[in-house]
């Protein structure tokens, strides 16, 4: 097995410590993003998800400034932003984009300030690239338990309110009629989303983390109509893209001996995009059937 893979896997891949950390962290984060992202797509909150990721740049760059791991900055900032978005009206479809956009604008202004201060007032050089495009190979292995805890929290919230979440994602009127506290479910979901995009921000970067959140989920929802199965597919698709991306980034070191390889975020995002394209070609949209069958499953 190992011998047959050797042309694909350059020597030292599995014994390399940064690779080991990247495979563990990237794998866990891809699974969480797949599960949470499936509901993001179902709820039509892709813009909110993307915005939360961008908003996180303010937190990540502030974390650099005070010298802690960007992950804590991402999580703190995203939870705050999710709270504000909920408060100004993410529930109302008409207010949703506006609320998201206003919080996004304000947060990016802060990010501009913090990134400026990172490069002018403190001794951090790589802050901008690290925050925006991720830095999975430089994650200290001491962060692995922290990432695991956040992953359990994000996935746990979604799984704990699985049924009500599915129902309120399909039709909030129907969910209300069934006595589901739709707003509470929405808040809980937004919190899980905030943590999930923070996690993918440390792996492939804040502005790319939507790709891991929405890409595999959108592909999975092309392959199946059932939310549970879609979440599982999305987790697997994200996992494959991330692991393959790590492998290609590692191998690319040997393709470009002078510069030392291409960034892992590029490979992960490109693989996700290609898989989405492939699903478009293979599976024709079946919009009419999709809605009815998801409803049946949820009910």
């Amino acid at each position, binding site marked *: 097995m190992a011998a047959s893979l050797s042309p694909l896997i350059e020597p*030292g891949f599995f014994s*390399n*410590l*940064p*690779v080991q950390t*990247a495979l563990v962290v990237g794998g866990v984060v891809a699974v969480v993003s797949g599960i949470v992202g499936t509901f993001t797509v179902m709820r039509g909150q892709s813009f909110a998800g993307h915005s939360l990721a961008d908003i996180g740049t303010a937190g990540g760059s502030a974390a*650099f400034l005070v010298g802690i*791991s960007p992950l804590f900055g991402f999580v703190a900032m995203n939870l705050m932003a999710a709270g504000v978005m909920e408060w100004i009206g993410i529930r109302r479809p008409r207010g949703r984009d506006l609320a998201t956009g206003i919080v996004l604008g304000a947060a990016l202004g802060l990010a501009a300030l913090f990134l*400026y201060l990172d*490069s*002018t*007032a*403190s*001794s*951090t*050089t*790589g*802050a*901008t*690239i*690290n925050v925006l495009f991720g*830095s999975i*190979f*430089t*994650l*200290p292995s001491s962060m692995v338990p922290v990432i695991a805890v956040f992953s359990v929290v994000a996935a746990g919230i979604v799984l704990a309110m699985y049924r009500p979440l599915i129902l309120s994602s399909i039709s909030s009127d129907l969910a209300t009629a069934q006595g589901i506290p739709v707003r509470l479910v929405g808040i809980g979901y937004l919190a899980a989303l905030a943590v999930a995009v923070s996690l993918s921000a440390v792996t492939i970067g804040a502005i790319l983390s939507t790709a891991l959140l929405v890409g595999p989920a959108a592909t999975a929802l092309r392959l199946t109509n059932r939310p549970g199965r879609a979440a599982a597919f999305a987790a697997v698709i994200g996992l494959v893209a991330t692991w393959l991306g790590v492998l290609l*980034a*590692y191998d690319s*070191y040997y393709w470009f001996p*002078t*510069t*030392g*390889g291409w*960034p892992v975020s590029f490979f992960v995002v490109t693989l996700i995009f290609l898989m989405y394209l492939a699903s478009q070609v293979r599976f024709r949209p079946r919009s009419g059937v999709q809605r009815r069958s998801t409803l049946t499953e949820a009910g």
Partner: protein
Amino acid sequence: MAAAGIALIALVSACGATGSQAAPGTIAVVAAENQYGNVAAQIGGKDVSVTSIESNPNTDPHTYEVSPSVAEDVGAAQVVVQNGLGYDDYMTKIESASPSQTRKVINVQNLLARPDSTPNPHLWYDPTTMPKVANALAADYSALKPADASYFTANATQFIASLNPWLQAIADFKADNTRTPVATTEPVADYMLQAAGADNLTPFRFQADIMNGVDPSPQDISLQDNLFAQHKVKVFVYNEQVTDTLTQTFISDAHSAHIPVIGVYETMPTPGFTYQSWMLAEVNALQKAVADGVSTQSL
């Protein structure tokens, strides 16, 4: 956009310049980095007013961002000293935005006839650099104030002689140690390490990645890890002005492997140092690390 802004500011300052902080009757000198500023002041003595742009030891000069007052200072300067090699490109932009027939620009890269492709910009660590800069300064000052020409020449001669303790320390180190294996984070002190006969085992690709604020490849990270874990180096030389989670990890790895760690600076640490005493302090730190296993993380 940024260049246009600088141009505008420089234009305004050229029209309404109040001569910056230069005392009346003195030559206004602007140095991009404070090590050049320090030498410029030593050569010019009572006849010059020197402004150094980069002197904050907590920031990385590579990511320096220009403020309006810098454009004003450069606009009013009669003599400008800059490193070149892309290290302080903003100087060239400001200079061309406020053209002057009389301003004398000492570009150290050109002075040393180094090609643009020179990978390591930290020229002031090369023992052959500053004598040439001192003589160039004396020549430019003499042209501006011919009456004091012999004073400037005497200062330059005295300055060059005062480098001897440093040069001696380098020669002594080289004589005592053959090809001392060292690891680094960036090529900051590489010219000096080379002069001292040290063998830098960190690949230049890795040093350039850290210097440029991008992530090194996992292969290079792993290679660097092994330099410490397998005790292949006697000293770890890191850039005191650029630290992040990765370099912090290496510092603690070096400590746990009982490898002495020394911090080197991109700009002259202040207060209390001259260029000569700073350079001497860094060789002394290297000597103490190799001879006694003592770490000197900050000067």
